[in-house]
């Protein structure tokens, strides 16, 4: 069986490419980190991949708005290739800063297939402060990326994750079930309607604020020492992996 190929973008301050690649490989994919300038030099490289991932980070230091400058660079140099990629039966994931890039690039929600049009925004958190911590999320609509997941605990870490859209756009997004992931109980950023992740209409392009790659191992869980002690007393074995890995498995398994 050929492993699905995953292109993970890097450069200009993106910083989660290594762990994102590792997560996809744990999930059975074949990852390759490609610097945006190398992709610009060799645009057709994208055609070789089944999945494109824009990982988390701090591209351009969030100057002029998170995801804006990196989105502009992709738009200026790679738009044709990217729009071709998304119309095929391929997958895209944008995590945190990657989600912010997807939103600025107009790949999500891309209502009425208007890929390239900015329709929603991720604004500074209500606290106006960078916020990091683990939170509970619920899956409220389907996407291949979240297959089989109903609830999930994941960490967030961002300064601009407050989802915003005007009323009409929001209504349409809700009507088309494009909001796929919401905070369950606590809303740490003041995000609209607890929204934490959305897709495009094809459901194949997925942007989310939390970081599943930071929940790929059991020892990344905030309460793993307690869980371990319990398993120890019950005479059971410790698991190796965490809940976030399933998202990467879902992406890879889409092509199997």
């Amino acid at each position, binding site marked *: 069986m050929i492993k699905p190929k995953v292109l993970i973008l*890097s*450069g*200009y*301050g993106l*910083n*989660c490419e*290594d*762990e994102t690649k*590792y997560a996809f490989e744990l999930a059975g994919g074949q990852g390759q980190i490609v*610097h945006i*300038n*190398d992709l610009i*030099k060799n645009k057709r490289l994208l055609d070789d991949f089944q999945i494109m991932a824009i990982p*988390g980070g*701090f591209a*351009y*230091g*969030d*100057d*002029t*708005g998170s995801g*804006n*400058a990196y989105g*502009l*660079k992709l738009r*200026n140099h790679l738009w044709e290739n990217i729009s071709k990629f998304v119309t095929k039966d391929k997958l895209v994931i944008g995590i945190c800063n990657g989600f912010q890039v997807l939103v*600025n690039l107009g790949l999500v929600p891309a209502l009425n297939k208007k890929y390239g049009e*900015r*329709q*929603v*925004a991720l*604004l500074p958190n209500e606290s106006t*402060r*960078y*916020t*990091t*911590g683990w939170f509970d999320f619920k899956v409220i609509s389907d996407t291949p990326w979240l297959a089989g997941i109903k609830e999930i605990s994941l*960490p967030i*870490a961002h*300064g601009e994750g407050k989802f*915003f*859209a*005007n009323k009409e756009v929001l209504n349409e997004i809700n009507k088309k079930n494009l909001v796929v992931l919401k905070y369950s109980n606590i809303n740490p950023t003041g995000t609209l309607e607890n929204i934490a992740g959305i897709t495009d209409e094809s459901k194949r392009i997925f942007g989310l604020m939390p*970081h599943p*790659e*930071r929940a*790929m*191992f059991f*020892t*990344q869980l*905030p*309460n793993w*020492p*307690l869980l*371990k*002690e*319990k398993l*120890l*007393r019950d005479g059971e074995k*410790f698991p190796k992996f965490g809940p976030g890995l399933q998202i990467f498995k879902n992406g890879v398994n889409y092509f199997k």
Partner: protein
Amino acid sequence: MINRIEVSSRISIAQAINVYTIKKNLNKNQLKEIALSLTNPVYQKFTINKPTLISKFTWAIETGFLPGVTDNVANTVKEIIKDQLKIKFVGDEDVFSSQLLLIDGKLEEKDVIKISQGLINPLINRIHFKSQKQYLKDNGMNKIAPQVKLTSANQVDEVNLNISDEELTAIGKSGIKNKDGSSRGPLALDLSYMKAIKKHFDKLGRNPTDIELESIAQTWSEHCHHTIFADPIDEIKDGLFNYYIKRATVEIRERKSRDLCTSVFTDNSGAFKFDKDYIISHKVETHNSPSALDPFGGAITGIVGVNRDTIGFDMGAKPIVNYFGFCFAYPSLKSPLFRDQEKKQPLLSPRRIMDGVVAGVNSGGNCSGIPTPQGFLYFDNKYQGKPLVFVGTMGLLPVKSSAIKKARPGDYVVVIGGRVGQDGIHGATFSSEALSSGSPAGAVQIGDPITQKKLSDAIVKEARDQKLYNSITDNGAGGISCSVAEMAKESNGCLVNLEKVPLKYPGLEPWKVWISESQERMTLAVPKNKWKKFSELMISRDVEATIIGKFNNSGRCVVNYHKKTIMDINMRFLHDGLPVRPMKTVPVKNVFKEPIIPQQKNLNEVLLKMMQRLNVTGFGFISSQYDHEVQANSVIKPLQGEGKINGETSVVRPIFNSSHAVAISQGLYPSYSEINCYQMAGASIDTAIRNLVAAGTNPDKIFLLDNFCWCSSNDPQRLYQLKKAAEACYDFAKIYETPFISGKDSMFNDFKGYDEKGNSIKISVPPTLLISSIGIIEDVFKTVSIDVKFPGDLIYILGETKDELGGSEYFAMNKYVGNNVPKVDGQKNKKLYLDFFKASQKQLISSAISVTRGGLGVALVKTALAGKLGIEISLNKFHGKQTRNDFTLFSESQGRILVTINPKNKKEFEKIMKENAIKEIGKVTNNQRLIINGLDNKKVVDLNLKEIEKAYKSTFKDY
């Protein structure tokens, strides 16, 4: 032509308006395209060369940077414009960012001035304001392009040293004189150094040039050369560093059967072998003086700077963990200090310093994608004149990528990263001096983490393993004057063509180019045949790389400027020509008043008060704004358990497919210093080690770093305290067999200025020694956390508890210092730690917390709150010697760990620990109460956990 684009929010009028000033001729279409690219249409709108108007406002306030201050947003905008419009910026064409606030309310001009002062730091910011009327009349704010304009370029002056001793002293203290009589800023060279320089140049039959003298000052500075630790002191001919710190490491390494150290003291970081494939480095720096002037800029350049000590370690390690420690005055303190007698130069308030420093490390770490799990806060009003800002970075280097740095004759001297400006002139010599009104504002810098991130990725992820360079080092203090001269030792000489150094703006004098501390730069030795590949790689990663000269073996450090030689110094003189200054110490023994504290039957209130103390309370507001999950290596986070309580130790697993983890922690007890610096250092080392052990670290694989932040280090009594602390470092490192791998010192943390009444005042930090510890946990699953886990678990106190409260938090709470400082019994503790490790390896430990500042009382609260379970214990019959309930509860006796275990493991645990002073003291309960029974077994504390948590988390609630 100057264009001005204003971008404002359509959904919130309270938000600042982003202003982009573009100095460049652009047509209407171009401007519109730029404005569109800077505006998010979903919620923003823009104006071009027209003012933003809203219906209701009374004043317009605009804040921006002063000329020459790093403007990261503007740099990004310039990149966007260049990429979008395919145009270039030439000559003085540039972009500047600023922020405009349109505020409402009945405000007089003096109110607006007051508001403005709260918005800016006058050392780095400019501010402009207009009334609504004026704003409308002028058609908005003025278009201002804050550019640096220098006229003094190309000037190289000879400095006449054939002058009197007084004049030599004056040059050494205040700097070379300009033609107009003003001084260029501190050289920090005392008369003996000035005379040595004079003698050297007399022999050559000439005077030095300004750049030569500045260069020598940088290289010989306390900051770079650590003369106080190097020079003879009393009977110790080799100096404190060699005799105590280094000797400890050398002797430990000789004795230890498996010496894991790979790099000690010589390189930019210390390092040890992590497993067969990887090396871990660690380095802790301070950035105190810059943080006093500009807290945000000082802190961010501190953390991003120490990241470069990692990138510049060996052939380039990847930064994998950031670490911080802040010592501040009480944020509520309101007694303003001034740098000048006229009270025109106020020091920033402790609260502003704290906010700025916290934000600086946030920005530096978060933007760089480096997790910051571990750190501490410590408060004492003696830090009002100079805060201490410790910043550290752990790095990861594959063994196969490691090589000995060796710049070879013929290699190019290459600088990469940021450009050189006026910022950070005299940083090294300045930090070797006390802070006063003469302190140069030019020493202020702002970091640019993204420029550095690009550089870091290009080096440690690509160029390093393609073996494109022979040597690499960081440009820190002293800029290229230090980095090039240091690296030139490897080849024994260099020739630099200074005009090749890329500048931020024209007109910089050569001596400034040479010593500027502009950030985000590294120096490399690139062989000729690798240059093309190296250069192409850097271009493709958007990192500026420039050849500025060649290494050679001439034995000289030569600098040319437009083909004229302006510096030509013998390498040996430059590095080793400084005269030795033997020091004498004078013993000091302070005796403080013995505290008189009435005994209380009930300690509920006392405990609650203790938990609110600045040095004890939770600082979750920092832990939850510093990303500690990035790089996916987090194992034990800064906030532990369901209750999210700050622990003393963090653990990371840097290699995804390895079971090995690394634990880091620290020990610091400045409150013991004035009583006994020897015991202070002992307690710091014991705590730093114990904190790691309690988390499951192998005591045999622990390494230490020392950071001495002293005061008035020309005072023989302060030197005596220093000597005693260094002696303790030797003694305890030897006992625990924990080698020092790296260290740094900052010797003059004093402030000389004026109080509110204009009286002259000197505030010195207490002698502060930070011991940072790092160790290996071979099996990540055997890591131990601080939270109690199950009701019914047994609670033990390991180690002896004595009435040792001298310098304790409890005495401080009662406004005493006391004298009976904790004394460390290293041999006993070592045995305990080794046995504890055996028990933790057998997974017999359910939770463990090291007992530190605030004693057992604080440890009990933290372990209970973290686990969200009750605890009931008795203070009766502990090992050691106790006299009172409060003293027992808050004693800071070292060598103690509070442990919970599964009752089923009792026998096995006690068997392993049998040769140690351990005592079962109570149980974990189901009832959400902390109950402490006293020495006579009568209840002294009975509190609901909710109540305690409220107290513990109250102090920084609004931060």
